[in-house]
């Protein structure tokens, strides 16, 4: 039997298993919180188990092709099918989404944000997991769209219900932005569908036949997709939902948002927009690159202007995704490899940073950089973890961040033939400057929060702390170092950051053939 179609049940199971967990949880009374958590965690673990099994079955020598392909009728009337498969690009992200969900579940064990109600919280998280996993495996535009949208509502509620002070505004903004994007994206999908002869929504088919569309039409269709994906990435100037959403979201929400949701956009570019509309991609590439580098510098500046730790990290996402988009905009397989690697790396690192931010918030009840300080003295482990992540995030060689960042810069030197080299080399230099700014804001953050003496209000070792002693006690009680749950939840990420930093080939081996397969459609 065809190796690529063997075991094609694993993907469906891995994707929809969480929903089974949801069903179970629906029948467990709200009061049984421990039970709820247990079921959710078990479900997530089982899902991850399936994911790991997928890893074992995956044929790494043919990472460039779709594997475990399954195709059955779904909406025959509009020629859309339930068509799934996975290749070297999807696999890492697919697994990443599962890992992150598990970690978040573990973290949630003793970190259910107010106003409590773990049942709803965890159910939403499981639904989210299905949406994320599904997006990465769909090989049919309609299916992709459905999963792509499926993540919206859960995230909307996660931010809106369990978020911070300004959560309602943030959640609505997040929702409207994304919906706006995806509405236009849908129109673009349909236009593509009809322009290719209304034959099929299958991605491979469209990739084959999309190139035949007249260039002007392509450019317009691409515009629709661009907005849809760029909002999700987010690229400048569609980024303003991100800081609010991240800042207001509960820790778990921020982590998932940063680690996986942002990747849906870049993934869309690589999987759908670019291969299907090669001519348009070549037209758009310089502008995408421009927006990308603007995003790099702009995001960094945004970070430097922040007084709130979490918001700073959020803005850093804009900058990092800028690097990813820069890699994509070169349209070379080298650049896209860097981009995909960057996606995973950013997922691990920024996810970890948000975890840290969340724990800081739990302990200090504030994320005001000015009020924090001396964390290395009070909570050394947490402080060093923060430092580690900062280093990883600013692209220190030997840690995962570097392999997304440096190759992206490198690739900008020689974009796909036909693109203006001068333009892209200018981008390259600007992006290189971006790395310095990255060092600036991350170390600045680290220095201000971790170095120095703890502030008196948090029981710092200064004499005037007697002034507001009750105040101290209020905080003292919470300020403790990393807990067991946190260790369990974080270690995999930390290990991953080092592992992929030392052995980037683990990923590149997967990505390279798949990207190569895509780039052939752009004539790269």
């Amino acid at each position, binding site marked *: 039997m065809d190796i690529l179609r063997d075991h094609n049940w694993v993907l469906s199971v891995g994707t929809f298993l969480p929903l089974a967990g949801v069903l179970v949880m629906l029948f467990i009374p709200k009061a049984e919180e421990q039970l709820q958590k247990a079921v959710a965690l078990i479900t997530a673990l089982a899902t991850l188990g399936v994911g790991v099994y997928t890893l074992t079955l995956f044929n790494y020598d043919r990472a460039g092709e779709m594997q475990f392909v399954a195709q059955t009728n779904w*909406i025959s009337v*509009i020629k859309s099918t339930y068509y799934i498969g996975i290749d070297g690009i999807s696999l890492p992200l697919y697994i990443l989404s599962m890992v992150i969900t598990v970690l978040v579940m573990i973290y949630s064990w003793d970190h259910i944000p107010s106003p409590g109600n773990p049942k*709803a919280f965890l159910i939403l998280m499981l639904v989210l997991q299905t949406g994320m996993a599904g997006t990465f495996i769909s090989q049919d535009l309609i299916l992709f769209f459905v999963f792509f949208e499926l993540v919206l509502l859960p995230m909307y509620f996660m931010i809106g219900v369990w978020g911070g002070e300004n959560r309602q505004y943030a959640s*609505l903004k997040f929702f409207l932005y994304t919906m706006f994007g995806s*509405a236009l994206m*849908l*129109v673009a999908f*349909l236009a593509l*569908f009809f322009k290719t002869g209304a034959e099929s929504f299958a991605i491979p088919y469209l990739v084959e036949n999309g190139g035949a569309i007249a260039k002007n039409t392509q450019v317009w269709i691409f515009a629709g997709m661009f907005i849809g994906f760029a909002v999700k990435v987010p690229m400048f100037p569609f980024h303003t939902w991100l800081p609010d959403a991240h800042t207001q979201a509960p820790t778990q929400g921020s982590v998932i948002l940063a680690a996986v949701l942002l990747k849906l956009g870049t993934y869309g570019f690589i999987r759908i927009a670019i291969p299907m509309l090669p001519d348009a991609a070549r037209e758009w590439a310089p502008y995408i690159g421009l927006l990308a580098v603007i995003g790099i510098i702009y995001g960094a500046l945004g970070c430097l202007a922040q007084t709130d730790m979490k918001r700073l990290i959020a803005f850093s996402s804009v900058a990092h995704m800028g690097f990813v988009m820069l890699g994509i905009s070169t349209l070379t397989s080298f650049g896209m490899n860097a981009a995909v690697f960057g996606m995973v790396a950013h997922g691990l690192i920024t996810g970890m940073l948000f975890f840290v931010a969340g724990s800081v918030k739990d302990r200090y009840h504030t994320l005001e950089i000015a009020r924090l300080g001396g964390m290395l003295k009070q909570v050394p482990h947490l402080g060093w973890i923060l430092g580690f992540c900062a280093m990883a995030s600013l692209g220190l060689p030997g840690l995962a961040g570097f392999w997304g960042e440096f190759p992206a810069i490198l690739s900008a030197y020689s974009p796909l033939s036909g693109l203006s080299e001068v333009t892209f080399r200018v981008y390259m230099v600007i992006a290189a400057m971006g790395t310095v700014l990255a060092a600036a804001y991350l170390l600045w953050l680290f220095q201000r929060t971790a170095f120095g003496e703890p502030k008196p209000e948090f029981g710092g070792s200064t004499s005037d702390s007697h002034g507001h002693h009750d105040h101290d006690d209020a905080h003292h009680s919470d300020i403790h170092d990393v807990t067991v749950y946190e260790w369990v939840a974080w270690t995999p990420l930390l290990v991953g950051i080092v592992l992929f930093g030392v052995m980037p080939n683990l990923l590149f081996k997967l990505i390279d053939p798949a990207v190569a397969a895509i780039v052939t459609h752009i004539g790269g």
Partner: protein
Amino acid sequence: MLSTLFAVADWVSPAVDYHAIAPEIIVAAGICVVLLADLFIADRSKWLLSTVAGFTLLGAFIPVLTLALSDEGPRSLFDGRYVIDDFSIVMKGLFLLSAYVIVLLSTTHIEEGDYYQGEYWVLMLSSILGMLMMTSSRDLVSIFVALEFLSIPAYMLAAWRKRDAKSNEAGVKYFLLGVFASAVMLYGMSLLYGVANSTLLSGLAAEISGELTAIRVLAVVFVVVGFAFKVSAVPFHTWAPDTYEGAPTPVTAFLSVASKAAGFVALVTVLYVAVPGASDVWQPLIWVLAALTMTVGNVMALRQTNIVRMLAYSSIAQGGFILMPLAVAAEGNSSAAVLRSVVTYLIVYAATNLGMFGIILAVSRKTRSGEVASFGGLFSYAPGIGALATIFLASLAGIPPLGGWIGKFSAFQAVLEAGTTWGYVLAVIGAVNSVIAFGYYGNVMREMWMRPVPNGDTSPIATPAPLKLALGITGIATLALGILPGVALHFGDIAVFTSAFGG
């Protein structure tokens, strides 16, 4: 003149296919039963009437099924003036089922109100009967009669709460404007008849085509306006918000779903069967109507605080989405897709909107208020209803994987299939509107999930059984249609006219 008399003289009654009109007959019988029973049974057992009404509708559904399953093809009565084809069968099914849900919604509401129940059910059934006739009418006369048949009881239903000034107002506005609109439409029909010398739609189709004289244009415009009023398309929507707000909630549900659907049935029938040749006239007209309807409906809905009124505007906007594909119905070979999308959308919309009204009924039983704010913290004390409400709202907003999205999707698909520039523009307008729409749907969700309970009263909501049943049906339908969109699309696909340019 004499010739006509002679014609009358040797008149023979036409053969009638009773199987074909069985649904209508059953409903008519049901009307009589309810009417008579109402006279004899005691007040405390009036609840029987709702049961009778419900069973009447279900009973009428049986012949619809048999008709659907019979492979006899389209049945044409009275030399083509009354046709039972796939389109009419599908729509009949839709009307009967949604009517049944509406009965479920009404039961408790009507029992608890201190008004006469018998008449309520009679009027309801009559209006349904009108709708059933509408689906099969292929002649100006029968269309007109069916239209009035479904409208006049609706006028009275709107004014149902006799002593409530709002209800009166709702009724009067609905009535006056309705009659005015149908008068205008009639004028248009008269002109049509004048130029085509036939009231048979297929007969008109033969005449109304080629070069368009002013009089033909005017005729088509007036007819379209008449139906545009029924589907409350902007700028003929003005009655809808006031009437919806004033009328009893179940009636509002009825108007916003069934009667609107009937309007679309009529509109589609006329456009497809009667005046396809005049597409140069009605396509631009509907394009403008659709764009206006979506936009105005949305922006007006944004600033509503009364949830029923908000839903009124929302249903106007949804009407815009249903109109949207009709604006390109005659372009290329898109007509089939357009018809499909209209039917699909009507099916999905019926399930979702009825569900939402069920939620409103359930919640208002506790809060006794129609304000959006009264939904505050709903999820915290009634998670079940909260979740359902979320599903319905999300579906109305068109978010996958809930029913609404397939409606919007097929609408976009139909518009784009035409491939005209205007089609794309309209699609983009629609896309933007679907985003604006979330503004107010999301607002309700926000109330339910993120806001505190208004007066801190977190006692659970007692939902009577019929209401539960209604919510169950609509909820499952909404989910199922979303996850297996093939179902709705399939019905949309088979519901085609015979002898129309789309069929």
